[in-house]
């Protein structure tokens, strides 16, 4: 005896499943509510504001020096000579270095370098890492060769590669960014590859194969968009690391030329006189720490909201 057939319409009325479309929070709404994202974002926004509006923040040209105003302590007034030979009265909020340059102006302008290096190095390594990772993960014949090369790259300390690359070329903003980005590429490649390897097994990718979707469309249309969340998170960590590495390179004297105001350069110049004038190192150091901290907090917040699985692992 079989149970009487119930019409689908009757089932629909009683079924829990046919309840109305569920409305869930979008990722963007979750991100905006997260306090780490809010705090990190606000601090970073202020730093961006500083870097953009540096000329109007009571600064002078950060490369100007004046022998008369050497080694001033913070808050002391002095004078500074412009390139036209004009002598200006100037208050040295953060003091001056041994060339008589205004550290306040140099720190404000230095924000630009740090943020540009962080952002561009992250974007550059992500771009290359995505291409390499997608290829290694989806085109199996390429995987072995590409990943062994990446393993080799990872075996060399990042800072050594960066120093070698800058030494090979001439120290400029572009070369520094490239030198910082290259050692990060293997890490991004590995992350993307592992994501691709798990996503390519998802039924929706197999369904796309069955629908006759070409391989490149599957890679960029189905797989890549699903790696974005972890990549954004990884990007913030690379950004923080890049800002630090740039400061290290400058401090070691192998980064940007010493006349360009970067936080690392300011600290390098302050090093011989650290005992008498600790503020030369302390102030740019605080800015560096705040920037890196803000980027990392932002990254943690993004990780918690965009990538809950990773949040539990780390």
């Amino acid at each position, binding site marked *: *005896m*079989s*149970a*009487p*057939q*119930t019409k*689908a319409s*009757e*089932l*629909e009325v*009683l*079924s*829990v*499943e*046919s*309840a109305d*479309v*569920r*409305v*869930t929070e979008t990722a963007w709404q979750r991100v905006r509510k997260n306090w780490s994202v809010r705090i990190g974002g606000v601090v970073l926004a202020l730093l961006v504001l500083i870097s953009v509006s540096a000329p109007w923040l009571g600064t002078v040209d950060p490369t100007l020096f004046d022998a008369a105003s050497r080694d001033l302590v913070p808050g002391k007034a002095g004078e500074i000579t412009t390139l036209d030979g004009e002598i200006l009265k100037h208050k040295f909020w953060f003091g001056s270095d041994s060339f008589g340059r205004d550290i306040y102006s140099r720190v404000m302008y230095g924000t630009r370098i740090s943020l540009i290096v962080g952002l561009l190095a992250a974007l550059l390594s992500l771009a290359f890492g995505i291409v390499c990772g997608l290829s290694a993960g989806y085109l199996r014949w390429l995987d072995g060769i590409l990943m062994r090369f990446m393993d080799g790259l990872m075996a060399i300390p990042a800072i050594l590669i960066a120093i070698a690359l800058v030494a090979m070329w001439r120290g400029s903003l572009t070369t520094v960014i490239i030198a910082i980005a290259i050692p990060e590429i293997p890490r991004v490649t590995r992350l993307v590859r592992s994501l691709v390897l798990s996503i390519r097994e*998802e*039924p*929706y990718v*197999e*369904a*796309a*194969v*069955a*629908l*006759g*979707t*070409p391989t490149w*469309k599957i890679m960029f249309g*189905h797989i890549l*968009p*699903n790696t974005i969340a972890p990549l954004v998170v990884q990007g913030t960590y690379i950004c923080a690391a890049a800002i630090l590495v740039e400061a290290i390179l400058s401090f070691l004297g192998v980064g940007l030329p010493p006349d360009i105001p970067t936080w690392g350069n300011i600290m390098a110049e302050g090093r011989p006189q650290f005992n008498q004038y600790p503020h030369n190192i302390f102030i740019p150091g605080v800015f560096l720490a705040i920037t890196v901290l803000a980027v990392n907090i932002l990254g943690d917040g993004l990780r918690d909201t965009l990538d809950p699985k990773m949040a539990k692992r780390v």
Partner: protein
Amino acid sequence: MSAVAEAKVRGSGPVLDVRGLTIALPTGSDRSEAASGVAFSVKRGEILCLVGESGSGKSVIAQAVMGLLPNTLPVTGGEILLEGENVAHASPDRLRELRATRMSMIFQEPMTALNPVMTCGDQIDEVLQEHTQLTPEQRRDKILDIVREVALPDPERIVASYPHQLSGGQRQRIMIAMALVLEPALLIADEPTTALDVTTQAQILKLVQDLQRRHGTGVLFITHDFGVVAEIAHRVAVLRLGKVVELGEKNEVLKRPRHDYTKMLIAAVPTLQTHGRAAEGASEPVLRTVGLCKTYYDRGWFGRRREVNAAQDVSIEIRRGQTLGIVGESGSGKSTVARCIIRLIDPTAGEIRLHGEDIAKMSAGELRPLRRRVQIVFQDPYRSLNPRRTVLEAIIEGPLNYGVPRDKAIERARQLMELVRMDPESLSRYPHQFSGGQRQRICVARALAQEPELLIADEAVSALDVSVQAQVLDLLEDIRNRLNLAMLFITHDLRVAAKVCDYVAVMSQGRIVEHGPASQVFGTPRHEYTRALFAAAPGRDFVFGTA
């Protein structure tokens, strides 16, 4: 409760008495309470089945009894009386004392419920060390006794094994041994056979029944499967959205259900009876495989190659307007066959003839124009749709790949949404905004957008609740008739196969062991394995009623 009354309860009263249990859900959930005023009792030596669909709150109730609820789900009202003692708000220490001694629980996943780095014997021993003063020798004897009692072969070897060395059924037996070693008064079984094959399930159900009878244990058995209920229950409680809608003797509830919801659930359970539709062989075969084989090689750098024959010599034929079912347990190779046919994996040998044209060895380029003729619907509705694409994009992807103009494809998508009985206005939504059944309908629409001749349903209804399952099955059958499709239906569920298939092929260990019209295979199974499979189907002899 007075001491006298308590002693009386301990002697003869119910083992578990749940009264007005209310458990709150966090704000922002789809309802305010996971369980509202739930009341039932489990007597000594009785099996009470708590049955309900996903989201009905059945597991939450089990966790509440064991004191395993997360802080986000507080008990806000009612009592849970375990042999007269209210454990609803018992301290963690008291609960720890009670677990394993007075109540214990077995879980759905025998793989993850056991610790992979401890031997099975040590894991049972841990329970004894924690709760008894026995000497190591006494403990060892007790462990071997209980392992023998759960009918595991060669207890000495089993005790010294690690979980990964045992099969799923054996692991579940170890879990049961662990749960029963201290003879608790109450055993909670939370879907203990859902992850197991049907033949293993039958053995485990029998074991639970045997042990329960022998020890007089009260069992709270949680399941979604009415076949299992018919097999094992004394009494049944039907749960819907956190409320008990019907509670009574098994025969009362299953044969004369009173509540509409119970009636609906029972009506939705497919029977083992075939539909008896005349199987005509006149139409042309859409697909025919000849000697299809798929062998996996495990290639190491050194050492021997290991071979796994996932599918061997599979020859099937599907005609227009017919449904061929491939039935088998996990690892039988049924999905391998489906994936070979749609060329997601390359067959090792054999022919796949689509309208006479062999596609088994075609290159990707040659295959592309033919891809649209065969489409597939997968098991997991939560992973079959790209979470970052709208439903519209999902449905029109295929037609766009084959050069259909966008406006035509959108027009077609709207018609398809109506065909799968969904609102065309919801095309702009994302998959996460739909339920499992709705997503499965979208997957069907996506497959149909290619106007295929063969539709493969790979366990397409296995992840769905029974009522939703009935709707989707209904839809698939309707579509097959309306579009005169050939359908390959892969399933492990004999009832589902009986409902939709015209022809059935039974697979075991990569081979087809029996093949024929559904009525013949189901009515007079010839092969031993087929007969074993039918004998294991839970509740096969039970006659459900809806009156």
